[in-house]
């Protein structure tokens, strides 16, 4: 029954399954570290703030699906400018040009120009586009509100603005082209003889003229609205799902490991104490154990999270509350066997205190078993938390994988074919669970000689 940690390590490194589990676990830990390092802590809170996600597309599929499609779906692009600054006499001119090779087979849904400037006086802003066929379309020109002192001003220009439509109609009418059939927005990207995308190199040019005054552009970006975005796509609320999945990893590991360690050690101490004391103490402790064991866990968990609270830390506590029972039973029976061993009796005769015997002689014997059960009970904790979150009873301020799936079911992702919203979180849950099951089974196979064949 006893193993030195050296032999366990040696056996474990030979076990293919165990090593696979460890590898997956290391990858997950690396992902969590990446999440912690690359994503600032405050943005956790912005997950549920719609204002944070304005520049993202709505319900966009992952961008890599274009590799499998013949008809390329336009990607959601956030372009940053190439800037030139010149001085024409008393006029300061800032020109931001946005270049893009548009090779997709359908039109972008819209475009948005977002800017923030610092100026005084009343500068002018001019927006135009040069198409691959050399035609230049004037889109918009506007003067920024007059100000005596230096002010900051930020705004967005939407492609749906009346002004832009009028300008396009004017430009097109000079060319005498059949324009009735097209939506004016699409005209920018369209061939003139048929309603198809004109592929090629587009340059959007934004020019700011500050007459006799200073002007500087702090922020300037052009967003071409598309239907695919990023590595994992976005959801109905424009949130970047890659971000949510990334955040979910450390959360799931935290929940799973904390619950597993908490409940295994609680159960271990409870069971060992009961088994070691024996008699009336044992009897009453085991009856209490039976009562908890017979309680339906999930219904009570739901009641607890509805009535007491659904903070993620409380949830961990609730899961521990129902998790320790089975382990207590097994460790009690193991402790009863160890109790009869001669060296334990010897130390008892020497007058050693009970708790010292338990800590020094009984608990170390149970440690391998404890590690195996920690690893095996992690997946259950993760899936239970995901289940509660899925029912909408989880902590809404943290984007766990269950929370993502809950949102997916609220917005009917299945019916709308948004597989990128449903598949990845579940696969992540399963992969995480699998890693721990592998590790647990490997340790179990080593410390439990019955399973060896």
């Amino acid at each position, binding site marked *: 029954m006893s193993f030195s940690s050296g032999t366990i390590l040696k056996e474990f490194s030979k076990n293919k399954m165990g090593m696979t589990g460890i590898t997956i676990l290391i990858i997950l830990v690396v992902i969590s570290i990446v999440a912690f390092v690359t994503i600032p802590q405050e943005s956790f809170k912005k997950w549920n703030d719609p204002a944070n996600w304005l520049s993202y597309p709505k319900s966009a599929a992952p961008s890599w699906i274009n590799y499998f499609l013949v008809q390329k779906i336009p990607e959601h692009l956030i372009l940053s400018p190439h800037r030139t600054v010149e001085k024409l006499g008393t006029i300061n001119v800032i020109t931001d040009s946005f270049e893009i090779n548009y090779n997709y087979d359908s039109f972008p849904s819209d475009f948005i120009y977002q800017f923030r400037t610092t100026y005084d006086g009343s500068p002018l802003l001019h927006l135009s586009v040069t198409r691959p066929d050399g035609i230049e379309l004037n889109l918009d020109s506007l003067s920024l509100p007059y100000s005596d002192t230096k002010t900051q001003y930020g705004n967005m220009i939407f492609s749906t603005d009346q002004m832009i439509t009028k300008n396009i109609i004017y430009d097109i009418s000079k060319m005498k082209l059949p324009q009735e059939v097209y939506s004016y927005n699409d005209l920018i990207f369209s061939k003139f003889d048929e309603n198809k995308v004109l592929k090629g190199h587009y340059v959007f040019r934004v020019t700011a003229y500050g007459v006799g005054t200073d002007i500087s552009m702090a922020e300037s970006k052009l967003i071409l609205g598309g239907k695919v975005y990023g590595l994992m796509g976005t959801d109905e609320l424009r949130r970047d799902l890659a971000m949510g999945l990334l955040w979910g990893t450390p959360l799931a590991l935290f929940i799973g490991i904390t619950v597993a360690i908490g409940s295994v050690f609680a159960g271990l101490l409870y069971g060992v104490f009961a088994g070691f004391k024996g008699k009336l103490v044992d009897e009453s402790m085991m009856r209490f154990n*039976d*009562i908890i064991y*017979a*309680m*339906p*866990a*999930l*219904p*009570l968990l*739901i*009641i*607890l999270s*509805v*009535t*007491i609270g659904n903070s993620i830390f409380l949830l961990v506590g609730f899961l521990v509350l129902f998790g320790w029972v089975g382990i207590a039973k097994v460790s009690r029976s193991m402790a009863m066997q160890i109790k009869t061993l001669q060296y334990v009796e010897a130390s008892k005769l020497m007058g050693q205190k009970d708790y010292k015997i338990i800590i020094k002689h009984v608990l170390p014997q149970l440690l391998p078993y404890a590690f195996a059960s920690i690893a095996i009970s992690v*997946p259950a904790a993760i*899936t239970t938390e*995901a*289940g509660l979150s*899925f*029912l909408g009873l989880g902590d809404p301020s943290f984007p766990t994988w269950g929370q993502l*799936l809950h949102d*997916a*079911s609220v917005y009917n992702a*299945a*019916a709308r*074919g948004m*597989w990128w919203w*449903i*598949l990845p*979180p*579940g696969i992540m*849950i*399963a*992969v*995480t*669970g*699998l890693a721990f*099951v*592998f590790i647990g*089974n490997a340790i179990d196979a080593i410390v439990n000689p*019955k*399973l060896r*064949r």
Partner: protein
Amino acid sequence: MFGVLMATLLVTIALVGSNMDSILKQSVSLEIREQVTSNKGLLNSFKTSSDLDQYIQNQINQRISALGLDQPWYSPNRIGLAMYKILTLDFGHAKFLTSDSGSSDVKEIILEKLPRTILLFTTATAIVSVLGIFLGAISASKVNSKIDKITSGLAIVSSSFPVWWVGVLLIFVFAFLYPIFPPRATPDIPPSDPSYLISLLNHMALPLITLVLIGFGSWAYLVRNFLVGVLQEDFIMAKRAIGIDEKKILFSHALKNAAPPIVTVLALSLSGSLGGAIITEAVFDWPGMGRLYYEAISVLDLPVIIGATYVLTAFFLVSVFVADVLYGYFDPRVRRQ
């Protein structure tokens, strides 16, 4: 066993009680205010508004003490009364929820929902256990063969997927991508219609497939592990030496000896699946106990919560009891002790 049932119910009442009381008190005061303001004659008989307030407050207090709400939920009187009512299977009337036929009697609601849950989960468990035992026996007879490895792999993989997620996935694939089955499991025909049963079965297909798909792998693995242990025993060797057919040894002799733990696990998993039904039924919109429970908790309908907890716990305890009895039947050594 009975103590466990009572303890569970006590915990439930303790958790929901105080919230429930404040909700009840609010609804009482709202009700009385409405009654008084809608009665014009009564309203005109008061001279000042403070008189009116006084009158309403008196009425509310009277009603509250009539309902016993003036005592806290943990007063021995109220708990004793609640326990007595539960013992006599009188769960009272639901505050918000009703059964499909419109009755608000908790007993009727539960009796309406319970058969559906039992139908779904018992069918699933039956299919899973038959499949599992068969597959487990085959892989136990050929340890380390391809079938064995596939079974073990399936068991591990399927146990780490959440059942409800597989459910969502199957709904996505088989209800929307390839519309073979209806996406929601609630039959759309009234129960009196003769084709109701067919519709019910059609709607049951998707949840059933999910449960079987997730369940049978780990079942087969379990059976296999028990059987491998039995197959190594001496009496099997002896039977082989006599020349009894390998199949007969496997299915009648070995399986019978592995039966006690299998039956225990079967009984426990059956009752465990009833508890797990909450999420599964929410996903598939299956009109059973699980969904009833979920709805009851989300509107804090105490009588329904208590009734459903009672039934779920009772089921669990009965199946533990049945498992013990069956264990004694299959393993006579336990009986003689």
